[in-house]
């Protein structure tokens, strides 16, 4: 009994700092003796109650006085005295941590944050599909929506919206605004609440109202509260701001400054024009798949060849990036792993060169935990500074990503100041400190340290094995990343070279918003006349929706004498020079000309794919087609080449009509092919516009090539990411090879010296050392190729027009990495040839 008590007291007090340990043990013993005189149970209880306070005392004094802080101070001093390894480790970590925290910030913004609507998991986007044409995200027509509303069972409600623009005039600068028109159901379906004011009123006879976005309210009125109740002049009519939307609300990534009511007349409800975006709220307990099937069945039964599809709104908003991010996150993890491995091998090599010191410490009685603690402490300066630098780098990266990414609204929501991001960075840096502090520590503190010290005399090279393994793993991971990057890069190059069907280079685009009134036609015809004689412009194209700039509207164009086919066809109203200005090939018949006036016979030009599908093997010229119905047919006078809406989009059939013959719609977008520079063309357009109407806004001035480039924004983003991953990974792993080889040379200085003394040729020695590096690199690369082959299925999801398992790519990357490794190895290997045999024998 008394033995057990003494042992307990002894054990507890050994935890205390040395200067009080003995006295405290004596105090506890004395206390026990005194209490035991009255009652042993009391004494035992008293001793038990002492345990927590003693442990706490031990913990505190350990934290205060322990050698750990000494180690840490020592480590910082060491880093200051010999900064090179710390700087390399710091840079390595800054890169690895920076990328991982940046990616975490982006994932957080896209995937983890719920949409700002009530019960967002039940919201879905509902699309019309045309399976035959590979179209799965078509906007449905009001007639289809009515059918879905009447016949589906899966939804609590279906809301509709469409996009529009409006000119804001009156106070302040005139501005062109993006408008989202939403119907009554949409407000209910979203479960929307105004951040200030109230929602839109759909009561009959309600005054013209708008809900404005938070950003617009701030920009224009200085705040949400100030905006509510204010009247604006939109397209010449007063509109009252009923309320302000909560910050960050966007729908399907559609641009909008304000939301206005969308009301249907009875006739509009049955319209076949496909211009609506539909969002539905699932009935409780219904899955997205069930809703999809429900809507699909209704669409199929309505018109064969068509279907429908529901997509979770979150998934839809996050879009394909939702697919990319886990893969990218994986790549970030790999990069972080390489970074840690690299620092580990750096530390390992440094530890190895200090083995004598550790052996001595071990011999003097420093235990394994003591040495491990020291090694961890030595890893901390780099980890802390690297973590801080990583946060800075991640700030740059996120800002860079935001600038690169396509949907700017969603991106504005990325928060850099999110504490979770900081915590992630901190956790990652601590984890990597442990990761690269511990491995060398365990080697250093291993029982074999002293034994290996003796082995040293015989020229054994200690932890070279683990070093080689680490370098090999790094090579494997970076080969996999480089292969992925090359595949993504090739896909990008292919896409940027896709023939769009027109030539965007040298074309500048404009938006000329104008109210639909009788004067508009005159304005546009005068403008075209002026541009025709302008020396700065080769040709001008006028339409309601330029390719790359706007998707345009789809409808059905049945042909006389041909059974009706439900084929989505985009239509554009254009001027005669449209095709020449954009460089669209003219295949058959004529372009529009001055004969095609409002009163003349109605004419149309169709695209090649429309002609081929409607009249296979026959000429389209002279045939008659109708817009939605065949009531007012148009005669086809020409066939032109197909146009891609973007590099990645499939060809959609087009019907072109002269803008002069379509009174219901206004052209509002202009593109001119510049003769000299873009600047002169822009100037010429402005002069021409303002000469006719000085109050006309000239907006959206953009080179068409920039628009084409923008459609590749997501791809570009991927490419930039993968390229930086690959460069970082390859750089780090080459650094790893360099480290291994220079360690190898340092370790075997004596051996190399003896060889040289015995007459070995220096070149042969270099070859031998480089050969060892090549073996490591080749083994690593082989593993990397296997890894890449295995990961190819994941990558296949987002590369287009390229086979991810391309043996040529695999071989080229492998060869390049092995060659680069040999080059990295050659630098320290050459040092071996400069060894002075006499010096080397004295070493150690």
């Amino acid at each position: 009994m008394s033995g057990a008590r003494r042992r307990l007291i002894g054990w507890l007090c050994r935890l205390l700092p040395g200067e009080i340990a003995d006295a405290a043990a004596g105090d506890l013993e004395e206390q026990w003796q005194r209490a035991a005189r009255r009652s042993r149970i009391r004494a035992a209880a008293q001793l038990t109650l002492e345990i927590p306070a003693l442990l706490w005392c031990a913990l505190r004094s350990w934290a205060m006085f322990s050698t750990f802080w000494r180690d840490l101070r020592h480590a910082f001093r060491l880093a200051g005295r010999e900064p090179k390894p710390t700087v390399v480790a710091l840079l390595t970590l800054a890169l690895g941590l920076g990328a991982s925290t940046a990616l975490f910030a982006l994932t957080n913004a896209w995937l983890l944050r719920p949409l700002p609507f009530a019960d967002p998991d039940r919201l879905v986007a509902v699309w019309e599909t045309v399976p035959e044409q590979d179209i799965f995200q078509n906007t449905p027509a009001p007639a289809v929506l009515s059918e879905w509303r009447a016949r589906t069972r899966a939804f609590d409600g279906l809301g509709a919206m469409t996009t529009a623009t409006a000119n804001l005039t009156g106070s302040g600068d005139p501005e062109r605004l993006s408008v989202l028109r939403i119907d009554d159901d949409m407000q209910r379906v979203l479960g929307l609440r105004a951040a200030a004011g109230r929602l839109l009123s759909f009561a009959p006879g309600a005054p013209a109202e708008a809900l404005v976005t938070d950003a617009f309210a701030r920009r224009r009125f200085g705040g949400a509260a100030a905006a509510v109740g204010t009247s604006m002049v939109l397209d010449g009519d007063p509109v009252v701001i009923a309320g302000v939307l909560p910050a960050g609300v966007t729908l399907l990534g559609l641009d909008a400054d304000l939301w206005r009511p969308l009301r249907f007349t009875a006739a509009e409800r049955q319209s076949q024009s496909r211009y609506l975006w539909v969002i539905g709220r699932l009935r409780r307990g219904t899955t997205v798949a069930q809703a999809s099937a429900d809507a699909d069945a209704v669409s199929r039964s309505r018109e064969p060849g068509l279907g429908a599809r529901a997509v979770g709104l979150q998934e839809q908003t996050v879009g394909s990036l939702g697919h990319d991010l886990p893969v990218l996150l994986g790549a970030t993890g790999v990069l972080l792993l390489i970074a840690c491995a690299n620092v580990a091998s750096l530390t390992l090599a440094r530890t190895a060169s200090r083995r004598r010191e550790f052996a001595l410490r071990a011999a003097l009685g420093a235990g394994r935990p003591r040495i491990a603690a020291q090694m961890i402490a030595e890893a901390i300066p780099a980890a802390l500074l690297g973590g801080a630098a990583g946060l800075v780098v991640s700030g740059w990266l996120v800002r860079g990503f935001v600038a690169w990414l396509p949907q700017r609204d969603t991106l504005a929501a990325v928060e850099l100041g999110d504490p979770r991001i900081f915590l992630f960075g901190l956790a990652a840096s601590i984890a990597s400190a442990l990761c690269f502090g511990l491995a060398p520590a365990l080697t250093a503190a291993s029982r074999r340290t002293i034994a290996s010290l003796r082995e040293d005399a015989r020229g054994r090279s200690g932890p070279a094995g683990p070093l080689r393994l680490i370098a090999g793993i790094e090579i494997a991971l970076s080969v996999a990343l480089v292969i992925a990057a090359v595949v993504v890069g090739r896909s990008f190059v292919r896409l940027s070279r896709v023939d769009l069907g027109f030539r965007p280079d040298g074309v500048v685009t404009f938006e000329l918003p104008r109210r639909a009134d009788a004067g508009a036609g005159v304005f546009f015809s005068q403008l075209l006349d002026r541009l025709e004689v302008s020396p700065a412009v080769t040709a001008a194209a006028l339409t309601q929706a330029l390719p790359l700039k706007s998707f345009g509207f789809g409808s059905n164009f049945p042909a006389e004498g041909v059974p009706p086919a439900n084929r989505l066809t985009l239509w554009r109203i254009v001027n005669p020079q449209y095709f020449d200005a954009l460089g669209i090939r003219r295949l058959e018949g004529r372009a529009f000309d001055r004969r095609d006036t409002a009163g003349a016979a109605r004419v149309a030009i169709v695209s090649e794919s429309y002609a081929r599908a409607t009249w296979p093997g026959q000429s389209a010229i002279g045939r008659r087609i109708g817009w939605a119905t065949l009531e007012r047919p148009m005669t086809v006078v020409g066939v032109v080449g197909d146009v891609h809406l973007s590099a990645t989009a499939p060809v959609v059939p087009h019907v072109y009509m002269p803008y002069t013959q379509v009174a219901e719609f206004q052209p509002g977008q202009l593109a001119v092919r510049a003769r000299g520079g873009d600047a002169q063309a822009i100037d010429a357009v402005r002069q021409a516009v303002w000469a006719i109407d000085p109050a006309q806004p000239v907006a959206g001035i953009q080179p068409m090539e920039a628009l084409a480039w923008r459609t590749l924004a997501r791809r570009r983003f991927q490419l930039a990411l993968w390229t930086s991953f690959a460069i970082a990974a390859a750089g780090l792993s080459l650094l790893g090879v360099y480290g291994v080889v220079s360690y190898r040379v340092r370790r075997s200085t004596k051996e190399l010296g003896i060889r040289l003394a015995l007459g070995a040729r220096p070149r042969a020695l270099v070859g031998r050392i480089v050969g060892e590096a090549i073996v490591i690199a080749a083994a690593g690369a082989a593993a990397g190729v296997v890894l890449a082959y295995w990961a190819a299925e994941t990558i296949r999801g987002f590369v287009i027009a390229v086979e991810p398992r391309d043996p040529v790519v695999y071989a080229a990357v492998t060869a390049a990495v092995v060659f680069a490794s040999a080059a990295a190895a050659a630098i320290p290997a050459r040092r071996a040839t400069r060894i002075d045999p006499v010096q080397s024998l004295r070493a150690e």
Partner: protein
Amino acid sequence: MPDLAEFELRVLLGVLRRGDDAYAVAVRDEIEARTGRAVSIGSLYITLQRLERKGLLRSRLGDPSPERGGRAKRFYALTRPGLALLRAECRMTQAMWAGLGLVRDEK
């Protein structure tokens, strides 16, 4: 002049009261007897160490005794700054209590 926590003050006073016999168990007894509150050796040592680090206490090892399993006592004593601090503290406290007559001096 640093502010003292309540318990730190009690420990300093306990050490002062015990004079030449101020080792942990004795100081603990002194505080318990006067305040009627239980004090654990562990928490006493946390404070003793902190006060020593602040330079208010100094300590020396005594001789081992059989009652303590042959272990030595560590005796604590106030340093000159420790004493000065207590004086100042006493003056401040008395100035605050003066004339209120809440508690009679029990003698």
